[in-house]
């Protein structure tokens, strides 16, 4: 992996192209490929070590994408809607791994809604990206549970059912990092992604990602044009990783800053209003307001650094459970003898 002299290298000496995977087989112009590009760029900028990353996904167009980035990482493409349980097991087995989960709206809001909720309840440390296009792509255009009321399918049907807002669900369940972004806005998505890797717990990123084949027509609320038109960023986001010593230059009072456990910082520059992402009630209110006003409120919706992740809740030893040697996991003979003595009540 010697980088060509012209390409910039990151803090561990890799170029951005070292973070690529195999070639995408999604439709040309797919929003998911734009997210893949943002993941590659974010991983490059953070200097992630690929062997420390485990990529996890379910089933669907979105869940195929882990093949297209971080080609040297282990990856687990699970069954439909069950990536969260896989993530939970992987994390507990090896708490040193960095988990990157990719799911879709069908995968997380329909078949996998239960596992999605329980992963958040347990605060499993995983960067959980939902590539949300409101439609089932691989099976050719059925509505998903995130389709907005009144949105029109390519074949003409209109959705009458309430959408499930996965960000609102996450906030309700106590998720400490909830963001919404747009695949067409890498400038916003990248710093969110980078910040998510510094969060100690579940980080939910609901990324609206238009389906160019089945959900990009007029009347669809998740078409590229409609999202672009109604995207309403809450703030401008900068991320300062712990390994960089950069001052972000804003006038006093213009920004809010949130420090993360690893020493990284998120700097949010005010736009329309001074949005406070640590205010849970306001966050939920903002989502409702956006829906009422037909706007996609994007940015970091909610942050809470106070909750312990699952490995700490379980009081696990520091080393990964997966690498404990036999002598640390097989109790001594005396232990078995003690148990047997308690059960040995026969007499002769």
């Amino acid at each position, binding site marked *: 992996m010697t980088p060509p002299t012209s390409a910039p290298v990151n803090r561990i000496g890799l170029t951005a192209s070292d973070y690529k995977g195999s070639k995408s087989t999604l439709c040309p112009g797919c929003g998911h490929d734009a997210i893949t590009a943002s993941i590659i760029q974010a991983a490059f900028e953070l200097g992630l070590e690929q062997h420390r990353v485990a990529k996890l996904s379910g089933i669907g167009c979105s869940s195929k994408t882990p093949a297209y980035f971080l080609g040297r990482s*282990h990856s687990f493409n699970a069954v439909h809607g069950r990536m969260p349980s896989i993530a939970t097991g*992987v994390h507990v087995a090896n708490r040193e791994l960095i988990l990157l989960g990719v799911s879709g709206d069908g995968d997380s809001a329909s078949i996998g809604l239960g596992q999605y909720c329980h992963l958040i309840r347990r605060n499993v440390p995983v960067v959980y990206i939902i590539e949300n296009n409101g439609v089932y792509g691989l099976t050719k255009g059925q509505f998903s549970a995130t389709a907005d009321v009144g949105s029109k399918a390519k074949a003409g049907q209109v959705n009458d059912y309430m959408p499930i807002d996965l960000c609102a669900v996450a906030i309700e369940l106590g998720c400490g990092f909830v963001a919404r972004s747009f695949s067409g806005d890498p400038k916003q998505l990248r710093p969110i992604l980078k910040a998510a890797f510094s969060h100690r717990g579940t980080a939910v990123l609901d990324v609206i990602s238009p389906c160019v084949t089945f959900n990009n027509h007029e009347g669809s609320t998740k078409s590229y044009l409609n999202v672009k038109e109604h995207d309403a960023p809450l703030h401008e986001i900068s991320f300062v990783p712990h390994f960089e010593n950069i001052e972000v230059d804003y006038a006093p009072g213009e920004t809010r800053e949130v420090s993360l456990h690893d020493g990284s910082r998120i700097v949010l520059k005010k736009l329309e209003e001074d949005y406070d992402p640590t205010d849970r009630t306001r966050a939920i209110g903002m989502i409702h307001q956006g829906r009422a006003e037909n706007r996609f409120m994007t940015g970091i919706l909610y942050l809470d650094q106070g909750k312990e992740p699952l490995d700490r809740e*379980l009081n*696990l030893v520091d080393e*990964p459970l997966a690498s*404990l040697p036999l002598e640390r996991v097989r109790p001594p003979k005396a232990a078995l003898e003690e148990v047997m003595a308690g059960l040995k009540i026969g007499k002769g």
Partner: protein
Amino acid sequence: MSPSDNNFTIHIATVNGSGSQTANTTLLRAVFQMGVPVSGKNLFPSNIAGLPTWFTIRINDQGYVSRDTRYDVLVSINPETSLADVSAMGPGSVILLAEGAPAPKIPPDRVVYTVPFAKLVEPLVADAKLRKLVVNMIYVGVVSWLLGIDPAEVDQALTAQLGKKPKALEMNRAAVRAGIDYASANLKKAPFQVRRADKTAGKILIDGNQAGALGAVFAGVTYVSWYPITPSSSLAEQLEMFLARYRRDPKSGKATYAVVQAEDEIAAIGMVLGASWAGARAMTTTSGPGLSLMTEFTGYAYYAEIPAVIWDIQRIGPSTGLPTRTSQADLLSVAFLSHGDTKHVMLFPATVEDCYEFGLKAFDLAERLQTPVFVMSDLDLGMNVWMSDPFRYPEKPWDRGKVLDAADLTRIGSFERYKDIDGDAIPYRTLPGTPHPLAGYFTRGSGHDEQARYTESAETYARVMDRLRRKWETARELMPAPVVERARGAEVGMVAFGSTHHAMDEARDRLRADGLATSYLLVKGYPFSKEVRRFVEAHERIYVVEQNRDAQMAALLKMEYADLAPRIRSILHYDGLPIDARSVIEGMRSGEQMEVAAR
């Protein structure tokens, strides 16, 4: 056989949730402590409190521990069932009845004792709610006096259970005493007694779920995920208790294990697969309905080759079935659990010792074979107590299977996840986190080639499936050997597995006494070892005894040995009660009569 000293069965009818379990266990332990072989069967409803429940204690100096269908002593505490319970008692039996309880006219050839339980408990306990619990200990006192069970042993058995709650212990002691006092002043000893013997020296009493849990602890299990379901919950709960006691890091006090109660069985098996893929020793435990939910993931694990240990404590199905009754009817669904061509490895523990040994071995097998391994226990084995020799500490280290680390990868210079390098059809794997650029690979349930790349190639698909079939043959070599007892010149061979085993020695002894010698094979694993085929080949007629309606083990045998299928017959028992020797003997006799008629 009529009841005699150290050879009789006590049937105790009480109300669920009344604390009678402690009373019954006290009696059972006290007999065991006197050196007399004993076994207990708890027949309980799917209910928290209020419905009838029965506990049967079989005392047998020959060591027969399967269910006895004839009761010699009835302890009738539940007035709701006393009419039927008393009517079922035969000549020569002993009936202990609560004063005022409804009872039919009892013929004079039964010994009847009437005890005013309500009056006896009144002065002991002021609280009416507590009385309902403590009254059970009065029958312990009465029964122990009537049957000659040493009061010192009763007291020791009671202390073993309540020793940590001094107040409860004192109250219950007083109740036992009141029972003994009443009986000695008012009743005559029963016609058959418990006599001290020396047949339980050094033995332990334990249930199969606890034994399985111990096996997992000493296997070095690091990850357990489960969803509550009867009758498997007690395995997970006892496992967590042992882990909390024996698996804390001595320096930091932190856990070298994790137990996560999942949101359902799909998540439970998903977590196990995730943990196992990442290198943990991971297991789950469940029963019928949970198993159905695990179907998709277990097919994934078979195809993507991920180890997993899954305990199935079988209960009566289909659907919710009878959740508190025993069964061996999950064999066929587990053998092929998943869509597509799938075959799963199964272990069949017959004894609590097997539960312990397979609790250990299942991990070695799963990691060696990189596939799910199902341990097929059942409610009878899992939730009832059985006597056993103490368990042996594992002599061997563990087998973590074929895992390459960074140094291996550097030495070899290449890695293909699904390539058969050694000719045993088991490929090598790497764990996430391995610091080597060759280590990573893509695990998927979709079509994949030897390099774990996505493919829809017809040849590659068939090639991978053929390798998996060859891996099945490797598994066959690693299965625990069956237990074989050859009777000289026997034309007839009997085959059993799991808890059915306990009815077999008694049935075969009685058949032999009647002049019919039988050989016996106890199957311990699937795929079947070569000895299984040899046994079937060596006998003209094979009777497969199992606790299901559809002859599931026989079906698996016929599938594997199509050429020998005509000699395979079935003896089936499937009413949810543990199989008894009499059913085996009757099944055998009617089978052999048909054989004679056909000649």
